[in-house]
């Protein structure tokens, strides 16, 4: 990007903001972020903590005003109504217009509603944006029972938020267990148990059939697919999100569910890119979905496109994936690939605490014994080391030799690697493990698991 060029990013979420930040490191070009949602970048996963009173809105803003000024990043709080791709011009709601040389669409997601009868009733809402948070403050005022529809991460966040205000919450989950579409049965069961012990009523294998409004148009109950009516004053829709691309529908931009891009985030129109939740890969990577809707992948997209825009053109490669979440008290980390169900070609070593909600799963390929992924519940492992294992295609035997170095739990915590080792020995009674150093600091040094230059732009692999 040349200094006289104008990079305009629509959306100031983690994808758009990371892009702006990383481009600025390499280029003096004009950078403008436009967002209809907020005047500045904030941490979306932290919205729930504002509602629960752990933080104020200003506390979830990671970069203060001086950062924007010193880095010459311009933020516009406005809505893009129309994009004129031919004239390279944006029409804004405020009436003004802005010209760009390079346009990046990072418009994120909006809640997916599935045309339920009565879904327009007051008190029915999703939870994605700052506006949704404000709406929730209004909708949840003085109520005593809420229904959350959907068994994803947003669903459990909503349940936790409403619960924190003393509102009884019932969750409608389509599957047999919460999280069963992404988690193996044992993990899903553990998380279900935990959610129930927090006082949330989980209604499994039950879906929303219709929203029943009262005479004033406010929700008074929901009807489930079992034909049961449940009285409630709020319905939280958490049945997934979809790309926020409706305003681009009638343009030359090629869309499917999202904005179609190649591995360089290039759309069908020159100088127009799309990253984050709104982008849909024409050819997704192996084991990756076409639309990557994680906060972490948004950041990776921003990093990767920044490299391309600043002259270091390279294809996006996600590398070993990872994700994390928290279900009330329960922390969850996952590294690599652990599916919900698997064939005989795969196996796993699984340990679960007898009476606490803790579990570790090491998932591997049976023929080659290659580690494919890890699930951790209530236990923390080092991302750097797990990433190294997955990237270097460690066998499960090699992993066991370094296992003790992986634990990241606080000092004085009880560790469970010995018990996991016991599980391993039951799987591989014949296999002799060679004694090897499993001290994290030695491994870190040995494999150089750190970034030397504080500012070097790392690739994602």
């Amino acid at each position, binding site marked *: 990007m040349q200094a006289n060029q104008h990079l305009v990013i629509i959306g100031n979420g983690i994808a758009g903001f990371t892009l702006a930040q990383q481009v600025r490191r390499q280029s003096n070009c004009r950078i403008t972020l436009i967002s209809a949602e907020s005047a500045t970048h904030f941490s979306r996963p932290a919205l729930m903590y504002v509602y629960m009173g752990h933080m104020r809105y200003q506390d979830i803003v*990671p970069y203060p005003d001086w950062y924007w000024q010193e880095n010459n990043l311009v933020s516009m709080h406005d809505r893009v109504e129309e994009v004129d791709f031919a004239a390279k011009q944006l029409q804004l709601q405020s009436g003004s217009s802005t010209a760009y040389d390079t346009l990046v669409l990072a418009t994120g997601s909006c809640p997916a509603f599935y045309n339920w009868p009565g879904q327009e009733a007051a008190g029915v809402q999703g939870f994605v944006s700052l506006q949704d948070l404000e709406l929730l403050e209004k909708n949840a005022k003085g109520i005593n029972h809420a229904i959350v529809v959907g068994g994803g991460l947003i669903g459990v966040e909503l349940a936790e938020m409403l619960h924190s205000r003393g509102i009884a919450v019932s969750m409608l989950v389509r599957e047999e267990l919460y999280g069963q579409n992404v988690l193996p049965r044992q993990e899903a069961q553990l998380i279900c148990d935990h959610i129930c012990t927090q006082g949330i009523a989980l209604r499994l294998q039950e879906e929303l059939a219709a929203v029943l409004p009262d005479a004033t148009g406010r929700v008074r109950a929901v009807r489930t697919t079992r034909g049961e009516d449940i009285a409630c004053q709020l319905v939280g829709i958490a049945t997934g999100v979809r790309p926020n691309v409706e305003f681009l529908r009638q343009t030359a931009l090629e869309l499917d569910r999202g904005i179609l891009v190649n591995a360089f985030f290039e759309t069908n129109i020159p100088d127009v890119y799309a990253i984050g939740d709104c982008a849909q890969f024409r050819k997704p990577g192996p084991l990756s979905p076409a639309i990557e809707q994680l906060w972490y992948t948004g950041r990776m997209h921003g990093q990767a496109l920044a490299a391309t825009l600043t002259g270091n053109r390279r294809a996006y490669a996600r590398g070993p994936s990872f994700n994390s979440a928290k279900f009330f008290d329960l922390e969850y980390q996952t590294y690599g690939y652990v599916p919900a169900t698997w064939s005989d070609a795969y196996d796993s070593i699984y340990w679960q605490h007898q009476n606490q909600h803790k579990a570790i799963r090491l998932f591997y390929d049976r023929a080659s014994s290659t580690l494919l992924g890890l699930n951790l519940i209530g236990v923390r492992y080092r991302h750097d080391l797990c990433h190294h294992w997955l990237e270097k295609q460690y066998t499960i035997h090699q992993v066991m030799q370094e296992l003790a170095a992986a634990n990241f739990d*606080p*000092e004085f915590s009880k560790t469970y690697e010995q018990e996991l080792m016991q599980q391993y020995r039951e799987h591989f009674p014949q296999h002799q493990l060679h004694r090897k150093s499993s001290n994290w600091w030695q491994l870190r040094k040995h494999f150089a698991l750190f*970034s030397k230059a504080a500012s070097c*732009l790392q690739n994602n692999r």
Partner: protein
Amino acid sequence: MSTTRTSTSVYTAINSAKTTRALLKAAGLLFIGLGVLGLLIAAFGIVGISPVVSGLGGVLILTLGGLLYIWQVRKQVPVAEQNNGAWQNSMTARGAVAWIFGLVLTGFYVLLYWYPASLQGLIQAVAPLSQWLRNRPADQWFLYGTFYTLAVLVMGVHALLKYRNSPYHLIRTCSVIFFQLGFAFLLPAFLLLLNQPEFYFSYFWPLKYDYLFPATVAYLVENGAALGVFMVFWGAVLSFIATPVLTYFYGKRWYCSWVCGCGGLAETAGDPYRHLSDKSRRAWQWEVAIIYPVLGFVMVTTLLLWVNSWSEGRLLGDFSHGFASSYGFFIGAIFSGVIGVGFYPIMGNRVWCRFGCPLAAYLGLLQKHFSRFRITTNGGLCISCGNCSTYCEMGIDVRHYAQQGQPIIRAACVGCGICAHVCPRGVLKLENGPRGERYAGTPLIARDDIKLLG
């Protein structure tokens, strides 16, 4: 499936439990109110009511009420919900209640330092305790020590319940309780009982600045004989040998959040106010501009006093004593007492430790440049939520480092470990490791080399 499916009848159970909890909470508050009333009666005096009965009785009822209330609001609430409403409650979000509480605390310090006669009623109330523990009449400092220790004990229970799932916080909290009760309250009293010099083994220069002043050294040696010599020796060893060695291995936390009485009060009584610390860049600039000059001030003062002592007053006359008494007035009394504790509900619980404590400055320099301690960020897992920065009592913008995958190595960090505790993704870990590549971050996040201090 039947095991995970809960029927709506659960809510009746929860609601009735809620009612009981609310009743017990109210009872706790009532007891607290009665206890405060007792203390007020003792303080202002009502003819016919002995200050001992109303004062000590008040303390007892206040303690019981406090514990009852704490049990309801902490033990009966899951760990992840302990910070619910912290920014919505008047007491913890600089509301009217917080201002009133801050004024009362500040007022108490003003009376304590400059108008101790006005506290006669309360001093009389603790007189029997003083007689029993120290075999001498109570003074305002004994009253202060009693209140202080009680606050650490009762609010220590609060901290133990609030952070009950973390062994680090359980051990650390027990440690500060132990050092306050044993080393800063009972042991000094016991020394007085044996007619020995009163000495606090858990404090040392430059926090306890006068422990290396010539007058104190002379007093200890003259009045304490062999024990006095040991006290001087102990103080010097802590200041110049134990501090660098322990800080090298464990960071500043071994003292600031495990041993120190000021830290002990901050970690217990001050814990509900930790989020009020200022995280702005300006606040950090003020911190650096104040805390190191304070360290310089106490070093110069000590040096001048010794020069004066050796020259038998010929060289400096009264000059060095003026220096010492102004340090005592501005730093010892106003800063560490009135502002340090009195402003808890407004400015957070570590104002003194962050901006004023010369020992924290000394430990901080060692921690930054000569220690194995750091807070590691776990790869690329940070979601920039801000809980770490918000709940950092030292006002460190922890998130700034975490979201860039860098370890947190800051002079100010007292290693309380709350950032790691409130992180919803388990991203932070306090640890001691080799100094090689100590500042290096994860290879999994692209970094931005901005200067936070400006």
